[in-house]
């Protein structure tokens, strides 16, 4: 064996001291909350989501107690409405999705052998937003103002302020805020999977969990924005009286259903796939062999993701859409059973081929598949439109959805909890309690939800606070209630097990003898994530690569040191994971927390109609974000390259398509463009619905062609200047670049004026009719983006003047160019739609 620098124990110790110092968590009673390390933030995130789950579970128990006997009056009808709305909304928005993000924030860097995700402060920001928004939404029930329109909040009852109170605003604004944080987390995770894999981990060696995370995060990117668009329309109607969903003024409540379910159906898979992903890690470990059919699973994940966007109308089978349209969605619903089945069969086949160790996590895995399959079967039943006409809005649906969610999301997560607890705490949970809890959960879920199939078919509608004894469903309901308490007892056992954990002794390292990277974690974990970033040659390196663990521990791979006293991780290329950069990561800071707080205040103040304060909040948020960007991004390193070991040296600075910042911008813009498509969809939807769209009459004259075209021309000019600035800057003409950016910013501002001039000049009255309302909405969306574009141009100019951006270090201008590309497309679509389209039709 050749002599290696790392043979020197002294050197290793010195490196470890340096790493420990760099990664030391912040201290102090306030300081410790400024931590951004994924291990810490991820744990807070998980605990918070778990707590929300318990809270929502208690709400469910109250509901079940109320429904246990006919004519019961434990709670009032109004409280019952709040209970089921909050239960459903919290389970979906405050538990299932955040839980996926939380677990991924903990696991992903470990799975990828990265020191942390590329934007640690963004994760922290996501967490704080989630906490603030979640407490706001959940707390409302204690003031009797919780939302009460059901988790899908169908208008018009929810948009009419005389029929629904503050609760609807709390739902819309509180959850929009959380959606923003979900999108932030999705960006973080996508860039994490694509860019922070360890050297050698090509796409075909990526752990399946990472594939699922990638797929699910992309789904969030396309699913949440339509809901955000819907939320915007919804709040404009509630707060300003713009009639998007009010049929009397040309609106249409069905539009909400479309936007909601374009989100809502993929959502089901967004919460299902990550849990299945845990199986993809658990099954091979206990079958003691690699998972069979790796490409098949990737196919299944990608295929499910795509097809799940073609299913939304199966929630709208009874709304009177043309039957032929229903048929398309029915077909897609049946098709999605194919990839789902493939995943399940790959797991079963792996178990078949291996020598299975029947550990506690395995028990949860198999048990949940059994429950999920029953839910899948009833799913195929309700995907057949005529059957759905019978079962729609009955307890049959409640049974179906809970079989899927409990089998597909909740119990797998408990299995993951038992599996990964040693990774996080260094301690195992009790097998005995775990198994006992499992049987309570399994029995409880079936006893609760199986009878609901029958009570539903016998005519029990969902969302009723009671039912008459004559319906003959009292017995079934009593059984369901008893089952729910059995289930709750199982959850309680799990909680007890967790609570006893601090008194248990540490388990050995890699207690399940797994083969994947995350099990490098040591029971007495260090905060640096991984001692050295390994070179990967196999899907199960701990099983297959010689002396793998000791080589990592002895710092024999890459980046074993932190000479410059900076937190760092390696950025690699997307396809083949070749090292291309070392990035400096964000360190503990109060900025993410403060930004989340200020942004949260915008949503909360708007709920209470305190618009001026909310406007101050917007300004405050902008200030925070600019400060954050100015101090925390695009830093020019003190040297060009850095040696990462093994004679390899990589740059410390990248810009353009190979940098992580560029990817983050690009991905964020995809989400932004999707939200915009939701609004444009609204416009054309109204056009197909009404014969007189655009209508004629005072206050409804379109914005004409002149001003929209002027605004478009100005936006395109500003875009061209940004592109030109990028080019001349790269060629060294910094003065010209600054001038172009400055003028470009002014032109963006002019575009705002021109954009607004159109509807103002023709005197459009948005509260009169849906046509002016949607035109105004599109214009506001576009000019707000112009404003952001202008801020970016001025910001970049300032960076250049301050010497923080140079011809060589030009990430800022490259990133804002991505924004301006999307800006240009947005302007083209908006102004062509409002300025030219009515004339064409």
């Amino acid at each position, binding site marked *: 064996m050749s002599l290696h620098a790392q043979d020197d124990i002294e050197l290793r110790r010195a490196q470890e001291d340096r790493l420990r110092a760099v990664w030391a968590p912040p201290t102090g009673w306030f300081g410790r909350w400024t931590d951004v390390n994924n291990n810490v933030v991820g744990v807070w995130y998980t605990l918070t989501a778990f707590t929300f789950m318990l809270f929502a579970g208690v709400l469910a128990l109250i509901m079940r107690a109320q429904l246990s006997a006919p004519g019961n009056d434990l709670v009032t009808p109004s409280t019952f409405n709040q209970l089921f709305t909050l239960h459903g909304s919290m389970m979906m928005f405050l538990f299932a999705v955040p839980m996926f993000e939380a677990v991924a924030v903990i696991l992903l860097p470990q799975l990828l052998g990265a020191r942390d995700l590329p934007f640690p402060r963004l994760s922290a920001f996501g967490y704080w937003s989630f906490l603030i928004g979640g407490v706001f939404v959940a707390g409302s029930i204690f003031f009797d103002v919780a939302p009460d329109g059901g988790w899908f909040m169908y208008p018009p009852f929810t948009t009419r302020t005389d029929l629904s109170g503050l609760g609807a605003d709390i739902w819309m604004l509180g959850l929009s805020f959380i959606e923003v944080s979900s999108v932030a987390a999705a960006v973080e995770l996508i860039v994490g999977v694509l860019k922070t894999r360890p050297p050698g981990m090509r796409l075909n060696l990526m752990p399946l969990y990472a594939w699922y995370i990638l797929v699910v995060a992309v789904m969030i990117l396309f699913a949440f924005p339509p809901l955000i668009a819907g939320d915007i329309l919804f709040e404009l109607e509630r707060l300003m009286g713009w009639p998007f969903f009010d049929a009397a003024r040309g609106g249409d409540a069905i539009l909400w259903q479309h936007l909601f379910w374009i989100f809502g159906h993929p959502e089901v898979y967004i919460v299902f796939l990550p849990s299945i992903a845990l199986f993809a890690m658990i099954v091979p470990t206990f079958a003691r062999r690699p998972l069979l059919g790796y*490409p098949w699973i990737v196919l299944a994940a990608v*295929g499910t993701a795509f097809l799940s966007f073609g299913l939304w109308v199966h929630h709208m089978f009874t709304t009177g859409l043309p039957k032929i349209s229903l048929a398309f969605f029915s077909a*897609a619903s049946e*098709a999605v059973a*194919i990839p789902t089945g493939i995943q399940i069969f790959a797991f079963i086949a792996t178990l078949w081929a291996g020598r299975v160790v029947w550990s506690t996590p395995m028990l949860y895995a198999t048990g949940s598949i059994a429950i999920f399959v029953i839910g899948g079967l009833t799913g195929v039943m309700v995907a057949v439109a005529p059957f759905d006409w019978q079962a729609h809005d009955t307890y049959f649906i409640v049974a179906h959805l809970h079989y899927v969610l409990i089998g597909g999301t909740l119990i797998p997560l408990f299995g993951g909890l038992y599996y990964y607890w040693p990774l996080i705490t260094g301690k195992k949970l009790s097998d005995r309690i775990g198994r006992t809890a499992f049987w309570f959960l399994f029995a409880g879920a079936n006893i609760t939800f199986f009878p609901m199939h029958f009570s539903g078919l016998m005519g029990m509608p969902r969302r009723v606070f009671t039912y008459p004894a004559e319906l003959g469903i009292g017995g079934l309901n009593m059984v369901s209630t008893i089952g729910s308490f059995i289930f709750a007892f199982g959850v309680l056992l799990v909680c007890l097990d967790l609570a006893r954990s601090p008194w248990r002794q540490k388990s050995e390292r890699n207690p399940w003898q797994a083969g994947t990277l995350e099990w490098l974690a040591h029971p007495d974990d260090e905060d640096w994530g991984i001692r050295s970033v390994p070179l990967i040659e196999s899907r199960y390196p701990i099983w297959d690569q010689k002396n793998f663990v000791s080589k990592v521990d002895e710092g024999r791979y890459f980046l074993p040191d932190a000479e410059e006293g900076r937190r760092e991780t390696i950025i690699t290329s997307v396809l*083949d994971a070749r090292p291309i950069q070392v990035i400096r990561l964000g360190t503990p800071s109060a900025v993410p927390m403060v930004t989340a707080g200020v942004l949260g205040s915008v949503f909360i103040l708007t709920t209470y109609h305190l618009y001026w304060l909310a406007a101050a909040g917007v300004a405050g948020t902008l200030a925070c974000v600019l400060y954050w960007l100015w101090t925390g991004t695009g830093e020019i390193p003190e040297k060009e390259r850095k040696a990462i070991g093994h004679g390899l040296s990589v740059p410390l600075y990248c810009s353009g398509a190979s940098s992580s910042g560029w990817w983050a911008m690009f991905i964020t813009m995809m989400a932004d463009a999707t939200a915009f498509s939701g609004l444009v969809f609204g416009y054309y939807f109204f056009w197909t619905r009404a014969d007189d769209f655009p209508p004629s009459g005072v206050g409804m004259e379109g914005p004409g062609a002149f001003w929209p075209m002027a605004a478009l021309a100005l936006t395109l000019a500003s875009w061209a200047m940004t592109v030109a600035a990028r080019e001349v800057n790269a060629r060294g003409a910094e003065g010209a670049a600054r001038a172009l950016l400055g003028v470009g910013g002014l032109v963006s501002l002019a575009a705002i004026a021109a954009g607004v001039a159109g509807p103002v000049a023709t005197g459009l009255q948005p509260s009169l009719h849906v046509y002016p309302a949607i035109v105004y909405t599109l214009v506001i969306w576009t000019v707000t983006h112009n404003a952001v574009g202008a801020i970016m141009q001025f910001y970049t100019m300032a960076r250049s003047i301050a010497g923080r951006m140079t011809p060589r270090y030009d990430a800022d201008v490259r990133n804002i160019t991505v924004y301006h590309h999307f800006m240009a497309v947005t302007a083209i679509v908006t102004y062509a739609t409002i300025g030219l389209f009515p004339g064409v039709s």
Partner: protein
Amino acid sequence: MKNETPNEGRGGLRQRVRGLRVTLWTLIVPPTVWAGHFLFCYLWVAVSCAKMGAFPRFPTAFVIGTAVALAIIVASGWIAWIQSGTPGDPPPHDDGTDIDRLRFLAHATVLLAALSFVAVVFTAAPALMLTDCR
């Protein structure tokens, strides 16, 4: 990737296909075609039914649209099929080499093409069998 040897010269088309670049984007071509076809069918029907009050001038647009979609899917599946057969080390092709990564992406694309093919046929079936808006 440039070291395949045996039948250089023969089957020039295959060689060229094999040399095509494969990325994460090529992987999603087949399902993206499905999505496009799906949207096309849905919007076409929705707009025709709402605006003309009648089923769209059947079946030309659907037949052409479906044929185009299927053709693209078959083509990308075929390309991927050839690429997945790029010669190299013995199975199971799970190593960290250029060829194995190529083969993996190609293999997954073939599978996705098969799924997308079925899904497009599923979507087209009702459009070809039902012929009015009710």
